[in-house]
């Protein structure tokens, strides 16, 4: 009898545990949630303006709903939106955060830190800068882009609409730039275009979470290949020909003498010729590619050094030479003094289907 009682008690405990299986508390079903894909943030007179782009399924397919609200904090604005909607807003699946240029210039430190602190926004969320007011931009997106679940985000998705001239930066990288001594990031800048496209204007140089300057798309391509992001597929336009970069590899050698850092950079590009104008020799193409890239790199390096924003992560190569106490001043003390010896080696792997004359 006692045994059966014991067994019964054990069994009911086990069955009771089944209730815990769902593991949720105050659970909201998916049809009562709104999951924004894109969030726009701007700051005007100490008030945050938050714009959410929420895909909603309808009978015709997918509609894009744009809702905007202001608040003292980003969270307050989101809560206000949530109050006014019949569903609750959940930032769990946010894919892209758009920031207005003025706000980026003032510094993103506060909002990036709170994005990192709050668990609902993933640190992997991509960040971009919008070079116009948010309201007209989102109006444009809603009216002229094809409504899809991931409209706008697809421009930055690596296996969708991303191009090698675009920088691809995530929240955690910006957060790292705020705190790290030797590492900054570049954030892509976009603007509404014509007939349903988005114009890409280049990238913003970020220093400690603040936008200080901008670089062109071509320079961003170089930035990407410098950082080991493959620049594959990009067509390089010159006076005489355009080439397809098949592969790029970078080698660095650092030297630190008498308080001056030196860096040797060798980029090896493997290209294939796509288009030519007139008669061109492979020697000429090679020379032109090397010249153009060297010029671009110098321009970018000049911006990096004058703005003291280490987007190329040049300080990383000197971590073993400079003690930590001085590394803190890398951006101000050493980066402007840095001497870079930049060499490009181009290999024309093939000429495509036709022979080069």
């Amino acid at each position, binding site marked *: 009898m006692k045994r059966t009682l014991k067994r019964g008690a054990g069994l009911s405990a086990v069955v009771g545990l089944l209730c815990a299986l769902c*593991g949720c508390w105050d659970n909201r079903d998916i049809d009562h949630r709104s999951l924004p894909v894109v969030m726009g943030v701007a700051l005007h007179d100490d008030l945050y303006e938050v714009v959410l782009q929420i895909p909603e399924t309808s009978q015709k397919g997918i509609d894009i709903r744009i809702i905007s609200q202001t608040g003292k904090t980003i969270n307050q604005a989101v809560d206000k939106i949530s109050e006014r909607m019949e569903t609750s807003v959940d930032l769990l699946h946010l894919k892209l955060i758009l920031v207005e240029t003025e706000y980026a210039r003032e510094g993103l430190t506060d909002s990036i830190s709170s994005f990192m602190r709050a*668990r609902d926004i993933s640190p992997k969320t991509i960040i971009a800068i919008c070079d116009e007011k948010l309201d007209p931009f989102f109006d444009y997106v809603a009216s002229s882009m094809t409504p899809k679940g991931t409209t706008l985000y697809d421009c930055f998705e690596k296996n969708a609409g991303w191009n090698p001239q675009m920088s691809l930066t995530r929240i955690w990288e910006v957060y790292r730039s705020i705190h790290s001594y030797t590492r900054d990031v570049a954030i892509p800048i976009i603007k509404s275009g014509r007939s349903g496209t988005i114009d890409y204007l280049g990238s913003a140089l970020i220093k400690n979470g603040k936008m200080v300057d901008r670089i062109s798309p071509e320079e961003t391509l170089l930035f990407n290949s410098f950082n080991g992001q493959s620049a594959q597929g990009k067509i390089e336009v010159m006076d005489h020909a355009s080439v397809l970069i098949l592969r790029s590899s970078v080698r660095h050698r650092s030297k630190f003498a008498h308080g001056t850092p030196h860096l040797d950079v060798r980029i090896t590009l493997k290209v294939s010729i796509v288009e030519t104008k007139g008669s061109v020799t492979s020697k000429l193409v090679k020379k032109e590619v090397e010249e153009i890239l060297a010029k671009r790199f110098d321009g970018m390096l000049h911006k990096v050094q004058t703005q003291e924003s280490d987007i190329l992560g040049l300080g990383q190569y000197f971590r073993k030479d400079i003690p930590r106490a001085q590394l803190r001043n890398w951006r101000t003390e050493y980066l402007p003094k840095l001497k870079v010896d930049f060499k490009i080696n181009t290999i024309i792997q093939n000429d495509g289907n036709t022979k080069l004359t």
Partner: protein
Amino acid sequence: MDKSWQVTLIYFITHLGLIFFMYPGDIIASTEDGHWIPIVLGFAVHLGAIAVYMKGLVRLGNRDIVSMYLGMGKGVSLLFLLPITVYFLLICVVSVRCLSEIMTVVFLSSTPLWAIMFLFLFISSYIAFKGIRSIFRTGLLIGCINVPVILFFFSASFQNVDWRYVYPLIGKSSFLTNPSYLESFFVFAGGFLFLGFTQPYVAYRKRHIVFGALALLPFFVFSVYIPILTFGQATASTFNFPFVVALDTISITWIMFDRITLFLLLSLISFMMLYLSIVLWSAMRVVNQSFPSLKPAYILLAIPLFVFIVCLYIPDWKDITEFYWWGTYLRFYILVAVPLSTCFFAGRIRKRKVGL
């Protein structure tokens, strides 16, 4: 029956459960550069303690350490068994409270704390109630399911690593007195005691444990170095759980789940439950052998209840870290005194037997 592999596996997975939460944060807070030095130093202490402990246990033969201490007289048993019991209770409180806090921070934001703590304690005490053999069997099952998951995500976490953040390699020795460093010994002192409790039930070859410990070394090193290599020291030191955040930055497009952190955390939490049940069971053994009149079942009800009530009275994260800090002296006492005394007393018992 020889259960060496089971015991080693349990030893391995309970330590895995301990490593990834608090340890990286503690080490990163303790020093600014050359993190491998504190890691290797702590590991060496752990390995030394285990080697001495194992030597003592081999000499002890088929008995557990509780009966050994009790056989040495009242003074000795008070000197060792009381701290061990208090330490077990402390471990229970700290790990239950920490884990439930981590759970609420990381994914169950709307579930009340008491429900999570209750579930933890309930499951762990249920496993403990079933005895050490079923703990081992459960461990084998959980290990087979979750160790591959952990290995996969552990190797995936190297995705955003920038190896140049390793420098500078040599740091100052000031970490030795840093409170965070002393706290980090939680992982080294928490999990090995149970090896002395299993003897009468499960026999195992002691050398295997040392191999198990060596297999843990890469996890100790990279649990700290992955956040550092991903973010750099200056950024990593701003996080409460650096490894969890570092894991959040991983994107693997072909996995249909956006956040892989969840999987790793759930595996680790299942290990922690197992760890809790072992600690509860060990605490029960100490109390039961010291006071044979008490029934094991009642002890196993009383201890979790006590832990639960204490956990409810800890209001915030600051108090948890304070609690954590109180245990430091006790931790070092356990880490040093228990292995040495086991080795010493076991030797004396053996000599006495030979003398007879």
